[in-house]
């Protein structure tokens, strides 16, 4: 799977259990490849194909994952605790996702 597809699939995955882990993985890839314009264009294109309701789901669950990681990752969501040391990168990923979604809605 291409990195951009991986990001979108993970962001759109609905799982009550271990859901935060999917979002954190996607945000980390966004943070890692954020400088890559081709990657960003591909993510943007894929996001553009998603309906607004699902985009709102996606945005909320990404923010929720960052929040749970900041609060207490061990308690909040099994599987997410290993991502605690990467908190700053995850925040960068969320900021990049937010910027992409702003562009989409502009």
């Amino acid at each position, binding site marked *: 799977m291409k990195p951009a597809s991986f990001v979108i699939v993970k962001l759109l995955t*609905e*799982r*009550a*259990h271990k*859901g935060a882990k999917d979002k954190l993985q996607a945000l980390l890839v966004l*943070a890692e490849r*954020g400088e890559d314009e081709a990657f960003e264009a591909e993510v943007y294109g894929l996001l553009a194909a998603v309906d607004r*309701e699902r985009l*709102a*789901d996606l*945005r*909320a*669950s990404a*923010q*929720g994952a*960052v*929040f749970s990681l*900041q*609060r207490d990752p061990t308690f909040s969501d099994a599987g997410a605790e290993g991502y605690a040391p990467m*908190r*700053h990168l995850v*925040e*960068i990923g*969320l*900021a*990049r996702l*937010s*910027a992409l*979604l*702003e562009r989409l809605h502009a």
Partner: protein
Amino acid sequence: MPDARRFLTADERMKERERDLRVLRRERMIREVAGPVWHRMVRVVPLSFEGQGRLVARELLAPREDVIEALKLDAVFAVDTAMRLAHGAGFLAVHEVQAYLTGTEPLDRLAQAGLISARDHFDSILVRPWPGPIRLLACLVDELPPSREVEGGYRVVTRERLGRELVGTVGPRADLFILYEKVEGIGTSAAPGVASTPPPHP
């Protein structure tokens, strides 16, 4: 120990799927009830106050106003205290003192003056659902965060940062986010904490 989840039956997987969809439907209902504020709120990149440095809790031995006054020159006040100092209304039920400091010297000074306990309090959970003494929660950082001066000469975190700290403290709570927007005089088109550039490294 074998991973039982690998051997879920189709029925069990369907039950999991239904559970996930129930959670999603509940979240969508919350979104619909909150209205437009929800969309502004989820644009915010949460900021964890306690995650910015080393958090130290000290029990208050004097009125909180005295403690705040004594920290005036050293601290940038944060979270609920910042909102109360700037606008007279906070968003947490328990009225404690949250501040950024660059060292422990102010804590020692306040302890010597009998304003706070000399020893760290064991409970440094920022929002605790259980009872306990009123505390000073000091986040020790290398560099104080960006701040603004409010009435009385107190330094509090910037408007944008306060929005991020609120969401980082209580999560996506539309009722509290509306209060924040109202007291800060934020127009409904503004989006505090929307990061078009990545947040700086702490």
